[in-house]
């Protein structure tokens, strides 16, 4: 242990979408902030255009169970200063007002304890700060404006536009958290315009894509915050009152203690509940780890006669929100459809696992990489008692038990999946694809420490504050009461700003 007193007003565990915006906002307000990040720090230039060599994912083993086990590793959490924003797809639809009141609307799922208008105010602030490219007119939200023009569509986007047009489905350029023109980022420097390299998931080498290490964290540091890389939090210390008094972290084999007045866990929907369960903290409700949700992320693929080369360009450059509440829906909630550009290794892995193909059929399919095109969904997922994160008996290198995540689709997810397969197959047929097939997939880690107004049914309140420990906060996708169809990062960043404001408001 370090002998010198090491202390901060606020310690934030995790430097991604949950931790970084609030670090910046608290630091701007004069709060002393230390961000602890398990992974290392990168420059954009450090990233590598290779799927196996990219080293920005949380690759420590997780156990996946249930009828529809979800994939981790390169598929979900990130590791490094920037967290999952290092590898996120930057696809940033806004949260839909109806999704936040799903229970009121459908009798299923949960309502959020935050009003949509209030959340959108923060979404707007996030978009203005990180820079979002999008269409001049957004068909499903007439008043919406994006700062930057859309990035180039790629071949799957053109195909999807064609297919949607033939079926009368509205589609447009996707909102993308990357800059389509050079743009100065305060306290960081110039983010170069997107070069259509297609390697968003391996790490953006031009800083065109918004990541917290090129946006929120430099802002935080400019206001006195400190970001410590390669610091793995392994323990939370508490004083006599039961309040958090500090954290213990390991840096390059050395255990260190950092005292704090408030602690924010922003380690994502798996690591945040895993730490709490390992330490048996903040769980009088028994809700920690419960209601794990993953978006229904079914994909539909096909062969085209044209040379698609789908690795080119921003991967998800087209969107339709028409299925958010489809007229013929037999499910609660809805889904977004996006065009897909998937890199070869990820595609090969998913197809070999998900299609049940092997032998010559698999070889032929993979050999045809340059002629394949796909579309996929991000569909809502209802909270369920059956889906939860628990601790396995096996431990990790720090002696903490590994996470086991059991996940099975319920009837609503199955209905969304079936509806989406039908819709996407129709779009792909209209676009001219042949040999069309679907691949099961789920994505994102949501829930597990949900927020609510009742301490018996939720882990934190609407401000992210633990019902059990009043100086312990959670801010990441684990607090989501329901999944929302929108990809989570934009909403997480908005919540992060709101959580900071709520803390500052109660500080007096």
């Amino acid at each position, binding site marked *: 242990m370090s002998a010198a007193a090491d202390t901060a007003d606020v310690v934030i565990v995790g430097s991604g979408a949950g931790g970084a915006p609030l670090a910046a906002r608290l630091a701007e307000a004069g709060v002393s902030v230390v961000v602890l990040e398990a992974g290392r720090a990168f420059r954009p230039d*450090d990233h590598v255009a290779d799927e196996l060599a990219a080293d920005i994912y949380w690759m420590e083993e997780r156990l*996946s169970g249930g009828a529809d086990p979800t994939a981790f*590793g390169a598929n979900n959490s990130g590791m490094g200063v920037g967290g999952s924003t290092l590898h996120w797809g930057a696809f940033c639809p806004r949260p839909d007002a109806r999704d936040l009141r799903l229970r009121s609307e459908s009798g299923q799922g949960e309502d959020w304890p935050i009003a949509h208008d209030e959340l959108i105010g923060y979404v707007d602030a996030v978009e203005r700060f990180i820079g979002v490219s999008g269409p001049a007119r957004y068909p499903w939200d007439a008043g919406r404006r994006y700062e930057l023009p859309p990035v180039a569509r790629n071949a799957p986007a053109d195909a999807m536009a064609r297919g949607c047009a033939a079926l009368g489905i509205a589609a447009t350029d996707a909102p993308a958290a990357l800059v389509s023109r050079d743009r100065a980022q305060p306290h960081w420097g110039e983010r170069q315009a997107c*070069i259509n390299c297609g*390697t968003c998931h391996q790490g953006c080498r*031009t800083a065109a894509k918004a990541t917290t290490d090129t946006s929120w964290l430099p802002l935080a540091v400019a206001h006195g915050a400190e970001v410590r890389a390669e610091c793995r939090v392994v323990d939370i210390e508490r004083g006599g009152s039961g309040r958090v008094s500090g954290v213990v972290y390991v840096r390059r084999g050395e255990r260190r203690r950092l005292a704090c007045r408030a602690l924010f866990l922003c380690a994502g929907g798996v690591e945040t509940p895993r730490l709490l369960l390992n330490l048996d903290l903040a769980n009088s409700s028994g809700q920690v780890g419960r209601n794990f949700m993953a978006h229904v992320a079914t994909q539909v693929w096909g062969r085209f006669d044209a040379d698609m080369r789908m690795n080119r360009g921003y991967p998800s450059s087209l969107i339709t929100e028409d299925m958010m509440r489809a007229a013929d829906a037999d499910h609660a909630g809805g889904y977004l459809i996006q065009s897909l550009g998937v890199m070869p*290794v990820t595609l090969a892995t998913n197809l070999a696992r998900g299609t049940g193909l092997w*032998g010559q059929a698999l070889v032929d399919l993979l050999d045809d990489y340059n002629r394949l095109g796909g579309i996929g969904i991000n569909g809502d997922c209802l909270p369920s008692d059956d889906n939860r994160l628990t601790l396995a008996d096996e431990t990790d290198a720090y002696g903490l038990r590994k996470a086991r995540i059991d996940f099975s689709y319920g009837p609503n997810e199955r209905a969304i999946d079936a509806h989406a397969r039908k819709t996407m197959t129709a779009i792909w047929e209209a676009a001219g694809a042949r040999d069309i097939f679907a691949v099961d997939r789920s994505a994102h880690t949501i829930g597990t420490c949900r927020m609510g107004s009742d301490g018996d049914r939720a882990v934190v309140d609407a401000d992210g504050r633990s019902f059990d420990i009043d100086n312990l906060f959670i801010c990441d996708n684990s607090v989501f009461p329901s999944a929302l169809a929108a990809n989570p990062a934009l909403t997480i960043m908005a919540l992060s700003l709101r959580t900071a404001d709520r803390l500052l408001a109660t500080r007096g």
Partner: protein
Amino acid sequence: MAQLYFLHALGASAREWDEVITGLGDLGDCVALDLPGFGDSADADLDVVGLVDWFAAQVSARERQSWAVIGHSMGGKIATLAAARARDGDPDFAGLAAVVLLAASPPAPEPMAEERRADMIGWFADGRIGADEAASFVDANTAHRLPEPLRAQAIADVERSGRRAWTGWLERDSREDWQAAAGTLSVPALIVVGGEDGDLGEDAQRRLNLPHYRDARVEVVAGAAHLLPYEQPAAVAALIRDHVTPAFARALPAPFLALLASDRVSRRTRAVMTERHAAPPAGKMLSSQQRAVLAALVETVLPGAADPVDLAARIDAMLSSGVGDGWRSADLPADAEAWASGLDTLDRLADGFAERTPADRDQFLRVIDDGSCRPDGAASDTGQMRLWFAEARAEIARQWMALPATMARIGYDGFAVGGDGPHKQGYRLTAADTIEDWQRLEARA
């Protein structure tokens, strides 16, 4: 046509390779170089970095092909350090397929008696190396007196050595310690040593050169001391041919290599692709029987596409490293155990999976996949076999698709989207049926 670069010894010249190259026939385009200060080249005082830079300029000046380097003595140190730069993603050295070292000076300081070093430096005290000094040098480095006119040629080359090059090597370059930079190399290496060599004999080669190469073997040539290309050219040529032929056979296509060497690719990307193209390190998790079953499984999952033995070794290496893909099914044991049990059970179900016909193997996999296999008493049960087979398919596909040779096969160029300059290149065109000139690999050759 693949290229072979020949780097000669101290006091020699490109001519020392004449008979070796004759013995190689049409193996490739043989480029024997005069090191700076030797043969017909002007005298120069280059340290080791300078020598490797000079070699880089030689390689990059020629059209990019798959290539091998054959380094003799002093040339061997340059060869190994060039291989290290190739590993680290140096574009000038992209495409290195094989290394042959002959009585090579190691990355470490070369073992040499100080008296002898002083003697040899002293030969220039009177301005030039005398004929008798040159003759004693050649004779001392051969097991038997060389036949004429080879001996006269070798002596003449020593005599015409540049003073700065000669003393620079002896006083400085041979003493420079490049062990850390050389590190461990994956490129296949053949280390040839003369049975009667002295300071750079077999013991020194095993101690100082072999540890730098993880895929290497040592060959001792009888009837030779240090001047192997002169003493045993036919044997040396045969060894080079045997070593280089399979390496060239699995080389990446020249247009792909040219793109890999271009400034569209970052050093880091080039380095990881270079490393992955090399043979995998030896795994130690699977038994030879399990490895054979895995190779047969690879052959069934990706028939005719993947090299089954190579891919099985890669998966064994992955299991040995303990670094997986970040998750596993909760119903399976840890990866290494799951693979061992899965392979054993598959072998048992098929009563010798590797010996079965492709159609039979396919049928066994079908039964596993539809959950109807009955592995009574085996390590894995029906459900586990189904889960493991899904995992195995995914891992086999993942490892195969990540190979640079597969990228070349499917026409993938997404690794060439940005070098190390302040502005990355990316793609200008993203629509279907549009292609940029740099992407036309077939037209580049």
